[in-house]
């Protein structure tokens, strides 16, 4: 199981701050979330990064999720 924490922007869609999901990878996680909240998958993939246990990963779609991981979706950062 992993814990997904939603930003306030995403909470408007999910209605909850966090949920526990059984997902072995980010890709699987996004698919499960999109099944539950249709359309959220696009929000979670377009220009978004994923933080897994505190480490921000820009292209995280195929990342494995260790059991017990804390996952955040956040806007991808570029820079100057």
């Amino acid at each position, binding site marked *: 199981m992993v814990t997904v924490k939603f930003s306030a922007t995403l909470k408007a869609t999910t209605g909850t701050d966090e949920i526990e999901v059984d997902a072995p990878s980010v890709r699987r996680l996004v698919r499960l979330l999109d099944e539950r909240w249709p359309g959220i998958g696009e929000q979670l993939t377009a220009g978004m990064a994923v933080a897994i246990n505190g480490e921000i990963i820009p*292209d995280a779609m195929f990342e494995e999720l260790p059991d017990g991981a804390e996952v955040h979706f956040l806007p991808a950062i570029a820079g100057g």
Partner: protein
Amino acid sequence: MTITDEPQAGNETPGYKWVGTRPIRPDGLDKVTGKARFGADLVLPNMIEGAFLRSPHAHARIVSIDTSAAETMPGVQAVITGADFPSPDDMAPGDAFQAMKIMARDKVLFEGHPVAAVAATSRAEAMAAAKAIVVEYEVLPHVGTVGEAMADDAPLLHDTLITSGIDPAPDTPSNIAARNLLERGDLDAGFAAADVIVERTFTNKPVHQGYIEPHAAVADASQNGRANLWCSSQGHFDMRSMTAKVLSCPPSMINVTPAEIGGGFGGKTTIYLEPVAILLSRKANRPVRMVMDRDEVFKATGPTSGAEVRVKMGVTNDGTITAADVWMALEAGAFPGSPMGPATMTALACYDIANFRVEGFDVVCNKPKVAAYRAPGAPISAWGVESVVDELASEIGMDPIELRLKNPAVEGVQAPYGPAFPRIGFVETLEAIRDSDHYRSPVAPGHGRGVACGFWFNIGGNSVATVNVHEDGNVSVITGSPDIGGSRSSMALFVAEELGIDVDRINPQIVDTDTIGHTDVTGGSRVTLSAGKVVVEASRKVKADLCRRAAKAWDCDIDEVEWVQGQAQHISGTESPLSLAAIAKNAGRTGGPISFTHAENVRGAGAGFTTQVVDVEVDEELGHTTIVRYTTAQDAGKAIHPSYVEGQMQGGVVQGIGWALNEEYIHRADGTLDNPSFLDYRIPVASDLPMIETIVVEVPNPAHPYGVRGVGEAGIVPPMAAIGNAIERSTGCRMADLPMSPVRMLEAINERNAAAD
């Protein structure tokens, strides 16, 4: 090669021989003798010159374009308009906006928006022909600021733009492209617990990156559908991808060769000229060079956002910040994509605050599309937040550094944007300033002293390096990261340290898109971290291979070989050591050329923090502010070439000083820019400034082999608030609108005096 012994003799870091030293940069000689080739310096055989016709209006419908007169002008070889480009209708929304930015289609959305382009045998002929193109416009009402653009009855730039980040999505279009919200805790309870609450609204005008080299590109599309492009940019792979999208062609059909880049600061992470030069070249069947004038740079390339930021924060008398409520709206310019996201995410990142809400809006208006500018968005929100934190400190009678030390972001604290911080060095920068000679010295009579802090994420990303050992044992290290401030030196230092050879035996090269793998832009403070990481990994592959070859030569087990000070040694000491040169000479007999590549999407960027202190003197009769002394402390993780780390810190601070005191886009009532020149867009000159004192804090980034954090960006975040805070402590005037120019300053002083009467 000379290793300078300033400011400290020898290596500044025990344990390293090369990392932490200050060798002369490999490209330095070319840059002090005029040999270095920047974007506008390339000349190809049979090359012709391009020029734009640009919109004189901030917002207008294009009724008609007649190019017939231009096409018969002397020297003219090609004329193109939006009709010559692939239709944006077939593109993804972001790509369509980019395509429309490059060349207007139905509407012009900002003054300077390209409407047509001409290639001719001379620049003068191209410009004359561009002037001869007849465009009929229907001028539309324009919106200049977030306030105007967000008004209910505002004229719309894009009639299909629906705000993202709101659920349910709005059913009508607006000028608001996106919204972001960060929230935690109980805001009302937080403010209820506060003894002091400060609430203010801050604004800033668009400011430009102000690189000295105008954009330039040369395209040669005259063979086989392929195109060669030379341009100065912060990342030629991104230039290729973006150009290919606008032209609807496969990226691999374009080879982009990086020119030396004359400054970028984020502004050269996007395209302006490149697809236009290729189309002109295709049509004229000759190489085409396009170089912007300075006024084109100001009118049509990326400033960063003008913005409005409302900040409300509460603190207890003992210095606990209990709540923060931040609202902001940032101008995106003509197309969506302001740095609203990072502005919201960085706003409170320096602090551990239990109850907060940060809401941001990305708003289009009739100005040039903003481009990234050093820590994009962060200075805009920090201007407000760091000013209010200073005011909170004053209100409760606490030293401003002490207040920050009571609420700092530290390892394990959950960042406002979500995840918990790993090991970071914010507290160390606060302590470095607190303990500095500057902060401990008394404030001179009539001066004011201000403090502010800044945060930037830093990023990793895609990088590739190839390390080649030549037959003489010297080494080339090849990357795809344009060197914008001395990164060749850092790459050479990594290789020298890993291979144990003199840094002057290493030749760093930056090559074209056909020659090395995809490499992300030089931006986000990522090159020393990410390119450095792949250079280190490729060097380690080389080192392992050298040991394997030595084992082969000695007919021993590889475990019996170690690499020490640039040579292979047998652990028994029975064999004469083999130098890199000796192994390289025999490479053909031990397995062939010695060449290793490492490619990686590098992670583990270490967050960067800075604390800065400034003393100012305000001439209260003229409103003129002088920067008397400035000290910046920044966590570099590990300074690979300390001079260029200091240089990044100093450069960031001085851009911030310009933003604080004088830089601004000044628009006329019709939405056109009134100051598109370095005369009236006033970046700091040498006589405006003192030396910028630097304290390089080194809290190693645990995710990097040498502990590197990026240092390019955080430095620009605090200066506006630091100077505003110093001005307040000198004059009693709390400034809320940037820049704090003499005119605004004198108005504030007059108001203060009137209030005292």
